[in-house]
């Protein structure tokens, strides 16, 4: 937000709420419309688009970023728990990537800095339970594909050679181009004269008021980037399926959790802070593109938005930091109707062609 917007913002939100007939709401609707597109270097983003779909970026050449971040699902994967690398099963839900450039924290436990997307990409590509690739090996693979090498040189210069760290920068540049599209909420927030269906209007008021959603779901993405404990039920697959418990416990081990073999549950941001108060806390998820990214929560335990709203209405589960809301069935339905307006139709994303390896001239 620039200075001008910052000044007018409280007036604008007050105006919106006034239009909605809710002048009594003390809280402002602390949501912001999508800012202008990120400035990206087109050649770099184009290379990143190719690499995002490139299975050679995984250790065994079978999984690309797009394997768990499907364009058709707003870059989530539609599964409660993500599959992860071959031979593993992951213990969390794959989040969508729309407008990921605007997130302040990445990963459900918030362990990565949203301002440093290339590092996040590197983590996904090299992490044993995601793509399990060796950075140097994949750079040599890229070098062996003439079409990719040509794209590389357009992005990094005619004399350049594929180089692991730059590869992650290219994918990050592509990620910056993924935006959620113009939604009804954006138009309202910009002050456009929009005819809002009654339920949506009511949901918006509840979102900012009685539902208290906006306390954590605010800003451009509908997230404050902070971690909270909601007491979401454990996903039984983690205890029941050894492959998922393996990735969960290994995560504890590699993050330096003391006595990690005694853990059985997803510790959330505790693994980052090692502060017991952070056990079971997960970063507030963004709300943009929500209708495309179910199932919901860090472990995919809720299949529908209705379940999510009902869960929040009851004040969450054991240990929750939420309060019961006392919403009526109609109010819950209105909230869901409002949440749905945060998703624009997904534009189809073309997949790059699959290129073959070529031979390099032998030295002898």
């Amino acid at each position, binding site marked *: 937000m620039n200075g001008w917007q910052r000044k007018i913002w409280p007036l604008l939100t007050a105006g919106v709420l006034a239009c909605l007939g809710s002048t009594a709401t003390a809280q402002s609707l602390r949501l912001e419309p999508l800012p202008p597109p990120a400035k990206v270097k087109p050649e770099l983003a184009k290379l990143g688009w190719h690499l995002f779909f490139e299975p*050679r970026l*995984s*250790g*065994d*050449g*079978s999984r690309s970023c797009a394997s768990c971040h499907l364009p058709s699902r707003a870059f989530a994967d539609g599964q409660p728990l993500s599959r992860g*690398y*071959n*031979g*593993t099963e992951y213990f969390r839900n794959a989040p969508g990537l729309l407008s990921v450039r605007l997130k302040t924290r990445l990963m459900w436990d918030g362990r990565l800095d949203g301002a440093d997307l290339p590092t996040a990409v590197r983590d996904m590509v090299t992490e*044993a*339970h995601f793509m*399990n*690739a*060796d950075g*140097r*090996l994949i750079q*040599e*693979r890229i*070098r*062996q594909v003439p079409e990719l090498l040509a794209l590389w040189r357009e992005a990094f210069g005619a004399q350049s050679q594929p180089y692991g760290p730059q590869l992650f920068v290219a994918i990050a540049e592509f990620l910056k181009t993924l935006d959620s599209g113009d939604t009804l909420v954006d138009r309202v927030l910009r002050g456009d004269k929009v005819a809002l269906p009654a339920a949506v209007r009511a949901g918006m008021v509840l979102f900012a008021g009685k539902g208290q959603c906006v306390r954590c779901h605010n800003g451009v993405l509908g997230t404050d980037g902070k971690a909270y404990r909601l*007491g979401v*039920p*454990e996903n*039984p697959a*983690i*205890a*029941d*399926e*050894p*492959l998922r*418990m*393996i*990735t969960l*416990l*290994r995560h504890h*081990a*590699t993050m330096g959790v003391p006595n990690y*073999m005694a853990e*059985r*549950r997803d510790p959330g941001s505790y693994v980052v802070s090692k502060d017991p108060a952070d056990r079971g806390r997960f970063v507030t998820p963004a709300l943009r593109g929500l209708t495309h990214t179910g199932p919901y929560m860090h472990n995919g335990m809720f299949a529908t938005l209705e379940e999510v709203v009902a869960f929040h209405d009851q004040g969450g*589960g*054991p*240990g929750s930091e939420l309060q019961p809301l006392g919403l009526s069935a109609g109010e819950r339905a209105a909230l869901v109707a409002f949440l749905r307006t945060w998703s624009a139709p997904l534009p189809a994303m073309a997949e790059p062609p699959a290129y073959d*390896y*070529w*031979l*390099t001239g*032998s*030295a*002898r």
Partner: protein
Amino acid sequence: MKQHLARGLAALLLATAASLAAAADPVPGGFGPLPPVSIPADNPMSAAKVELGRLLFWDKRLSGNASTSCASCHAPQTGWGEPEALSRGYPGTRHWRNAQTILNAAYYSRLFWDGAADGLEQQAQSAAEGAVAGNGEAAMMEMRLRLVPEYVARFREVFGTEWPRIHHAWQAIAAFQRTLVSDAKKVPFDRWLAGDAAALSREAQRGYALFIGKAGCVQCHGGPLLSDQAFHALGVPRHAQSASNPLVQITARWQNLQRGVSEAQYKGSDDDLGLAYLTRNPADAGRFRTPSLRELRYTAPYMHNGVFATLRDVVDFFDRGGGEGPNKAPQLRPLGLGATEKKDLVAFLESLSMDQPLLLAPPRVPESKPLADGGMNARPR
């Protein structure tokens, strides 16, 4: 001065087991049955450890995507190696060298063709973790073992730890490998040395004479192991796949990059530098460890890159005086062998293998199961 020191150190490092051959022995070349395997003080043998190692040797979970076990590239039915010239490597890759037999590997003081590992324990770890071999990540492989109740019990019994530890897995696999050795009673040449005159055919006996005489093989292939365990450059031709298979080219560049060669070498050459990766000495470029000749019948193809499919190919190569390349071993010179002599030599080489190959059936690998208390503790508290 510095270079001399480095060379001296490398020689010391590599000559330990060669002393085996140098010991005074009435038999020419120091031949004889293999002695008992020497056991490292920090990894004593036990039946339970060997049995655990046997299970782990076949366990595909000791790789990145749970697709590749030790036995995937070191299969008993193909001489505990691979029938392919260049090893299949990890899925999505192709290795750049031949998967050599692990039979009698217990006798090598340094492992891998280029001597990169100083023992079977380190070799097992390197193979399981290397990006073009097992591509496994240590913490992941360790946690997989911990979710297998049978392994938890076996590691506890063998190593006394509450949970399996990955370095113990390499120890167990090494212990298992120390049991995979030739049995002198089943090896014609060993029986012949022991006095059974009928154990070698006339061809093989003539081949033996060539081996220790005209052909000069014994210069490097002496001692009970029939290897001096030293590193020699023979000028073995490149494998055709280094020019025809993109995956091999990728691996060759990656190996050079990974092992920290000069920028010029990385950008300008895909040569396999062999021992020089370890010693950093250009005079060691192209040198590979002399392989044992035992069990040769079952371990084709031959050489570090598997470029020769048959023993006759190998004999022809040595008869020519080897190939072209840097630092070529002075022992190599054209031999002038006739066709019969070559056949005799091959007959002798074949007598160095057991009458029947050493085979083991794959074991039933134990299953992963949910942690016993996982369900209970996973309930909301």
